[in-house]
């Protein structure tokens, strides 16, 4: 394995350093990348779909099918973790004594109680303000997941605050399906897949695209949040046999000290 790695690194290194100078210089406005397709995106985003954030328009509308594939990749990763590590102990709504021992402490608990509401609120802001400022589906979903994961870290492993494991799977799949459904509506109406301007909304074409982007962003947020919580639960939760060993070890440890 070691010799293969040196050969591969040598081959890649030679190709990289040999060809770097012939790439267009960084930052020159006439380079092919900034003069062929991207001027259309920059000049027409605001008029086409009333969305100043040019990256959001490219992500969700001009190349919206890529992001549907992207949301599917995230769902695939979640389902893969579910299949590989799928057997975990059922969740308990309220933390038991052992959970408190293994993780929690008053300081952490108070901090989490203060932080989590603002994290979730900021996540929703990032999602809904994605049209005008950097942010959008992926970032909002990640922050939602970060809030829920923070509570799991503070409260101990098997406490299912907010979203438990079965709901996380359904969340991941239904988020991806929401994105898919927004595209399917226009296809079933006889138009092209993901053509938001043909959505059955009583608005102008640009605003219909704007609403289409919002609907799709919500789907991405739900999918990313569900998947990240699912992957965290798979990695973090204790399977059946470890659970008993751990509880008995802690009880033995507790008697040893007293």
């Amino acid at each position: 394995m070691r010799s293969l790695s040196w050969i591969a690194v040598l081959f890649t290194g030679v190709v990289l350093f040999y060809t770097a100078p012939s790439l267009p210089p960084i930052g020159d406005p006439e380079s092919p990348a900034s003069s062929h397709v991207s001027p259309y995106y920059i000049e027409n985003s605001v008029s086409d779909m009333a969305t100043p954030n040019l990256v959001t328009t490219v992500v969700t509308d001009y190349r919206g099918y890529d992001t549907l594939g992207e949301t599917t990749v995230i769902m695939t990763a979640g389902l893969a973790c579910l299949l590989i590590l799928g057997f975990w102990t059922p969740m308990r709504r309220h933390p038991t004594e052992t959970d408190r021992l293994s993780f929690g402490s008053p300081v952490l608990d108070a901090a989490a109680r203060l932080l989590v509401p603002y994290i979730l609120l900021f996540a929703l802001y990032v999602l809904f303000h994605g049209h005008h400022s950097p942010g959008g589906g992926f970032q909002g979903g990640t922050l939602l997941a970060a809030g829920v994961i923070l509570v799991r870290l503070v409260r101990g492993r098997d406490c299912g605050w907010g979203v438990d494991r079965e709901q996380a799977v359904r969340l991941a799949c239904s988020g991806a399906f929401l994105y898919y459904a927004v595209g399917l509506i226009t296809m079933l109406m006889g138009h092209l897949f993901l053509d938001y301007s043909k959505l059955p909304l009583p608005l102008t074409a640009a605003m219909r695209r704007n609403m289409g982007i919002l609907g799709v962003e919500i789907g991405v947020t739900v999918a990313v949040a569900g998947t990240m919580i699912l992957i965290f639960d798979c990695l973090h939760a204790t399977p059946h046999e470890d659970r008993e060993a751990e509880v008995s070890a802690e009880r033995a440890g507790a008697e040893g000290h007293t």
Partner: protein
Amino acid sequence: MSAFYEIANYWGVAILLLVGLHGMLARPNLMRKLMAMNIFQVAVILFYLSFAEKTGASTPVAPHGLLHPLAADFINPLPHALMLTAIVVGVGTTGVGLALLVSIYRRYETLEEPELLEKMRRENA
């Protein structure tokens, strides 16, 4: 001097890519292979962002009320959109890799590749 800066990014990307590739193939510890994979993917993201730049152009968010933005004023948004995908794919792959590592550890009690191969060979015999 500016000629150096024009391709400085590409040298940096090349070195980072080689560090990541070497780490993935040569590191014995499986967890470090995953870290090297993330470094490998960050190098590709840097590569895409370096040829998205335009001198004298601002970040690709049009200010409020500007109905017809000019192409020269804003950075190329397409590589940014592509790299959002690359980051999320990287984290997804890392999640699946870590799930595999946890299940390998539960079965073989080790994450070092030489020990792992030795245990598997002993079981085959």
